[in-house]
């Protein structure tokens, strides 16, 4: 490992190849998908479609941040979908009966998410429960609560609250602002703060992190709280977009957020991954379902396609780690 062998002069093709290998496959996949979509579906290139896709991606993009965060420490949160459904139900029902208390209702919903995250986090970190099974259990239990509160879609959010997903600041839709702020702040925290570095370290080697003086349990707990918090935010956004409560509206988000994170290069064993990759994963999933809807593909096939894509993403991860 002499220094001379490291500082070899590089030809330009070398550096291009290096650049290509450092760019994650998910970005190529996204670009390819956009190009294919634009060619096969002229309406895709219109600004309105782009805007629609962006708005319909927002809830998933919010939840994926939390999911990625948890996955960075080799955890997983299968309760996000149920939290979202619960939040749509609670917010829509309460806003219908108490339209003047929107602020308090939002706070309550966020509180629900944080509480669920706290329970998940404490049980996973301090009581060493397996996150996969535990969050499956809390999610299942919560789904029961949702169906008890609201058996079929109902409730109504206030007109002002609907603006969150529909309004815009000048030409820029609120969802775009929400996404940009969330991802910029989130990435900044993960990459530039001691906390973020600790998250990667805990995910990379928990023992080493502990011996380096990191409070491993606290960090893990905090990530589940963040995931719960963001799931409730995602639920609120969803409620704003559909305008009412729906006990099953959050269902698909659990699977989709995991798929987006994995597509984005987040390693299931922790320690590797970032938010922007996950965002690209989110767009891939959204564009794909938009395209499939435009072409009237049955939702059954959409499930098959989503499942296949996730397997594909895992295969990419497998080959990447094996080549190392």
């Amino acid at each position, binding site marked *: *490992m*002499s220094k001379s062998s*490291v500082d070899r002069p590089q030809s330009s093709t070398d550096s291009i190849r290096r650049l290509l290998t450092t760019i994650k496959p998910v970005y190529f996949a996204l670009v390819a998908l956009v190009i294919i979509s634009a060619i096969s579906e002229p309406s895709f290139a219109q600004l309105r479609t782009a805007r629609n896709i962006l708005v319909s991606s927002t809830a998933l993009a919010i939840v994926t941040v939390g999911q990625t965060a948890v996955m960075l420490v080799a955890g997983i949160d299968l309760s996000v979908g149920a939290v979202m459904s619960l939040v749509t139900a609670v917010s829509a029902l309460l806003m219908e009966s108490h339209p003047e208390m929107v602020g308090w209702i939002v706070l309550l919903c966020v509180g629900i998410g944080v509480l669920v995250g706290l329970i998940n986090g404490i049980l996973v970190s301090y009581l060493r429960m397996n996150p996969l099974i535990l969050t499956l259990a809390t999610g299942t239990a919560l789904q029961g609560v949702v169906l008890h509160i609201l058996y079929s879609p109902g409730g109504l959010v206030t007109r002002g609250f609907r603006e969150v997903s529909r309004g815009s600041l000048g030409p820029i839709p609120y969802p775009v602002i929400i996404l940009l702020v969330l991802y910029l702040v989130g990435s900044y925290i993960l990459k*530039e703060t001691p906390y973020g570095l600790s998250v*990667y370290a805990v995910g990379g*080697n928990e023992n*080493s992190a*502990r011996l*380096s003086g990191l*409070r491993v349990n606290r960090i893990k707990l905090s990530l589940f709280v963040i995931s719960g918090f963001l799931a409730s935010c995602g639920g609120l956004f969803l409620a704003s977009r559909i305008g009412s409560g729906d006990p099953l509206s959050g269902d698909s988000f659990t699977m989709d957020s995991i798929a987006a994170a994995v597509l984005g290069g987040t390693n299931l064993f922790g320690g590797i991954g970032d938010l922007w990759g996950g965002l690209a994963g989110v767009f891939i999933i959204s564009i794909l379902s938009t395209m499939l809807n435009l072409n009237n593909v049955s939702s059954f096939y959409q499930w098959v396609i989503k499942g296949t894509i996730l397997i594909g993403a895992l295969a990419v991860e497998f080959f990447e780690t094996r080549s190392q």
Partner: protein
Amino acid sequence: MNPVFEMRHISKSFPGVQALDDVSIAVEKGEVRALVGENGAGKSTLIKILTGAYSLDGGEIYLRGEKVHCGNPSEALQLGVGAIYQEFNLVPHLTVAENVMLGQVPSRLGRVDRSEMHRRAEEVLARLGVSLDTRRKVIELDVAQQQIVEIARGLARNLSILIMDEPTAALNEVEAQNLFRVVGQLQRQGVTVLYISHRLNEIFVVADSVTVLKDGKLVGTELVSGLTEDEIVHMMIGRQLTDYYPPRGSATDDVIFRAANVSLKEKLHNVELTLHKGEILGIAGLEGQGQRELARVLFGDIPCDEGEFFLDGERVRIGSPARAIETGLGFISDDRKGDGLVLIRSVRENISLPTIDDYAVGGVIIKDREEMKYVKRMIDQLDIRASGHRQVVRYLSGGNQQKVVVAKWLGVNPRVLVVAEPTRGIDVGSKSEIHYILRDLARQGVGILMVSSEMPEVLGMSDRILVMREGCVVAELPGDTATEEMIMTAATNAHESSSNGAKPELRD
């Protein structure tokens, strides 16, 4: 005579590193060939290519005159090539016998033939001169026993080319002697052995010839009989290594740290120790006498049942590693890969890990430049050979990895540094560098508690030596006059049967 295997013009690179550059070796049937070199010289890479664990970028491998291509370890095993690795590849929850026979479990009518399996495992262990209950689970064994199981597994396969990577790293003297005897037996049976070790004296015992690698290149192959240890070292590092150990003389009489009455069920019994400013206190003993636990208790990683700790005469509580660091302690772990480093992250991230909060303002923003300055200074000062601070530590050699661990703890500015096996499995060059760093720290007033199972290291480095046996400190010896015999006498309790001269001051 034709070589039984030959590797020609082997090249292999990893991201940022040319691990092997045009290396050729040829070994004859029944020959024991030692393979030496500093960490990062390419030894591990070479054997992993031979066993099919790595693919090669360029070059050819010939086995008994035929060109072969080992795509994976199981193909290599079928060709009779197998390795005993330094890192254990054991299945913790299976028994000793199951591990030894894994991959060739005897069966009758589709059912595992347990009695045959145990009989054959016992047979192999007997060849090693070891009696070990083959029904015990591997997870219950200590490191030395696990190493023996690993070796037994290699022997059980009846390979024609056996590669041994640091087989004695975790063994005591007697076990190592048994291993050498087995190597001799294998040789007489026509088995070819490729033997990797950092303990150069072993090479003169077991090997016929030695191949030296440096920086991924072949330095040369020589017959052992015509060489001296110094000559091998010279070939390995390209320079003469004069002083393996730095001079002593930094210890003072001021007590910096004291532990009283430390007990941990079945592992530690009323351990008392006093550490002075500037002192290196060696903890010696046979493997598994509580040294590892003691180090971890002092650093708060294992909660002790009883015990009091004093820093500068004041009682301190050390409930967790985080508290220990706040109190002024640092810990270089004996398990570099298991808990010393985050292997998948960069050099920079690893170095900054315990101190990262110091570079933050209000707990939020990294003061990038200061952190980078520290990381770069450490890379220079400790001569960490990496392609840059972004390099993922997994790709570094053992010696360079260990320097990253050291750099990480230097940043903490510890008052007391607990060090466990600081140079396990690293080359002589890096070893000596790390010894000098430790002594420098002591000179700056740091108290160092060093657990080591390497006798020369304990004798060469320590100002005082405590010997442990069965969880108790049984002897205290002065570092400059202690001898290997004195330590071994105390460590093995031999004083009860013999009463010859140099009897250490015994405590009980």
